[in-house]
């Protein structure tokens, strides 16, 4: 039996390329303390902690949650560490939700972080194992060919990616926590930025950030006891498929489509484009907005770019996507998925500040990772299931 769970509080760091003012523990605590304050609880009220982050090689610490036990107030409590590649932030939120949904705990703290400035993600992601061809070039080198395939398949005009970049960066300027603050970015400036992994330009690429996100998830009693608004978790879903296999659709992966279908089913949503008020979607390269709009069922295959082109994904559009600025504005990799989940919660709690979508009642949080193979998603709403 699944118990109802809700997001009671959300916190995040001020994401920067280099948070030289804090240790790893300090970075996490900045997010944790804000989430606890937002939920109106203390660490002593937390029953269990779930930590998520991407590869340990990024910080050079093996299973850093062990060392972080004291900083996260986890001593004497259950502590889980999740790692599902780039989707890990989402998986962290879902694991924390499961602890409540399974009836195990009343309040669970989910923390996800990455302190990328401790090393260099391009290095860590491009270590060529022996015997192989050293053609790897980080995440951009991996995903750019699939973006080219999307453009070919959909016939999308070349400027769609730049439109997404302009929108997300301008949204990011409305979010005081966002790493990149580029309110004056323009289509021309994006289209004249350096071509990194042709067809992906510099301004269409996520930054490398230090940052953390924390979310307090509670059961019905904890939600009722909460003074502020909460975000009710209506549905969660995860799906995985292999990185490479014969017949894999890198543009519209089946794992993502299956995951979304399962999510909508559990949430009782039949027309996602009409029933979702705002979506926080994991878009590390601008072109993934139209790709995921299709994969998630917001648009027919090959048609996602039309929503973007028509401005429907802007704040005020029919389906605002990434009002927080998204991954294109802040990318502490391990936290990026939880940030999507947390921003979806903030929207339905009505606490998103300058990037609030008016009247947002139902929101999607989405994350993906690996070679477009790990997907995790949730739907949160301003009212509980069945209301």
């Amino acid at each position, binding site marked *: 039996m699944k118990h109802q769970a809700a997001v009671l509080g959300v916190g995040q760091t001020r994401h920067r390329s280099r*948070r*030289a*003012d*804090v*240790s790893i*523990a*300090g970075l996490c*605590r900045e997010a944790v303390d804000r989430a606890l304050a937002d939920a109106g609880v203390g660490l002593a009220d937390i029953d269990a902690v779930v930590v998520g982050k991407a590869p340990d*090689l990024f*910080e*050079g610490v093996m299973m850093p949650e062990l060392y972080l036990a*004291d*900083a*996260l*107030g986890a*001593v004497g409590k259950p502590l889980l560490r999740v790692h599902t590649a780039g989707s890990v932030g989402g998986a962290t939120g879902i694991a924390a939700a499961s602890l409540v949904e399974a009836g195990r705990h009343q309040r669970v703290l989910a923390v996800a972080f990455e302190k990328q400035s*401790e*090393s*260099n993600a*391009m*290095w*860590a992601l*491009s*270590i*060529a*194992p*022996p*015997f192989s*061809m*050293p*053609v*790897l*070039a*980080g995440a*951009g*080198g991996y995903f*750019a*060919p*699939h*973006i*080219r*395939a999307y453009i*070919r*398949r959909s016939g999308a005009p070349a400027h769609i990616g730049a439109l997404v970049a302009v929108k997300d960066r301008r949204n990011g300027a409305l979010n005081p926590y966002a790493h990149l603050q580029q309110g004056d970015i323009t289509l021309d400036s994006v289209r004249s930025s*350096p*071509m*990194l*992994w*042709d*067809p992906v330009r510099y301004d269409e690429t996520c930054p490398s950030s230090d940052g953390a996100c924390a979310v307090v998830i509670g059961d019905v009693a904890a939600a009722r006891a909460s003074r502020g608004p909460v975000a009710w978790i209506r549905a969660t879903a995860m799906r995985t498929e*292999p*990185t*490479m*296999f*014969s*017949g*894999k*659709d*890198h*543009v519209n992966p089946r794992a993502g489509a299956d995951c979304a279908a399962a999510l909508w089913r559990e949430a009782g949503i039949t027309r996602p484009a009409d029933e979702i008020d705002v979506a926080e979607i994991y878009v590390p390269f601008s072109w993934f907005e139209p790709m995921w709009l299709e994969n998630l069922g917001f648009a027919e295959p090959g048609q996602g770019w039309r929503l973007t082109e028509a401005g429907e994904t802007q704040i005020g559009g029919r389906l605002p996507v990434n009002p927080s600025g998204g991954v294109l504005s802040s990318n502490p990799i391990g936290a990026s998925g939880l940030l999507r989940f947390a921003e979806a919660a903030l929207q339905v709690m009505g606490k998103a500040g300058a990037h609030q979508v008016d009247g947002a009642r139902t929101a999607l949080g989405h994350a993906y990772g690996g070679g477009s193979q790990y997907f995790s998603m949730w739907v949160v709403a301003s009212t509980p299931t069945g209301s």
Partner: protein
Amino acid sequence: MNQPLRAPLEIGFDYTRSLGPTLGQFMTALAGRRVLGSRGADGRVHAPPFEYDPLTSAPPAELVQVGPAGTVTTWSWVARPLAGQPLAHPFAWALIRLDGADTAMLHAVDAGSAAAMRTGMRVRVRWAEHTVGHIRDIACFEPGDAPPGAAGGPTAAAEPVTMITTPVRLAYEHTASPAETTYLHGLANGRLLGQRCLVCRKVYLPPRGACPTCGVPTTEEVALPGTGIVTTFCVVNVPFTGQQVPTPYVAAAVLIDGADIPFQHLILGCEPGEVRMGMRVTAVWRPPEQWGTTSENISHFRPTGEPDAPYERYAHHL
């Protein structure tokens, strides 16, 4: 079956760690040859200091000076030191409760022999020749009490230490899977050997330990030609640490004729701007005397000049 191929894999990076307020003060003090502890909510002094109290998770209220001598609370003997450890000759690891502290610090004791070690013995800090604000400013501990007047080094405020660098160097042995080993031996003989999954009939190049959709080992060997098509690609313009190919270069997904999955390779022999989806390409092998059991035997792929494959031919491989 062939023994799997093995090769060394070295992982090395000099991590740059920002310290935050508590560790920053601690490291700054080390640079000044002083050791600080933190006072916990229960009044106990922790040395080294905690950033967050194990009992309350609060940051320390204050840092206090401890040591530089202390008492061994437990120890173990290292007969053969490992790379990176504080001493290159046999030494003891010990937990040392510094004078003025209630908890113990883990560090090395240069005692000469295990016979010279005992729990309860007095030891003192041996400072590194140059202190920079790093835990290794404490070179190790050595038997003995604090010399008189050794309660602290120069107290003049050193430049605050905010960062440390910690090199992490690890050596691994990489093992190729049996299927990859067969493939690599094929390459070493100038052949491209794929394998067919007997369940779904798909041909994998390179072959995999198991068919990723069927979960069964792929066993039927299939010899493949060096020709194929570029299904999709990107032009890499961005340089990065550890990069082995000069930019710009084309990283492409190449679908070999007869294979059911593309693999990643380089396209050279034309301008990057001339590479197209559907372009016919052929493998350019290095001279046979340079061949080894590596994917790099094929230096790159080059255009054949044949007409491009129609989109329909490779659309389901994107």
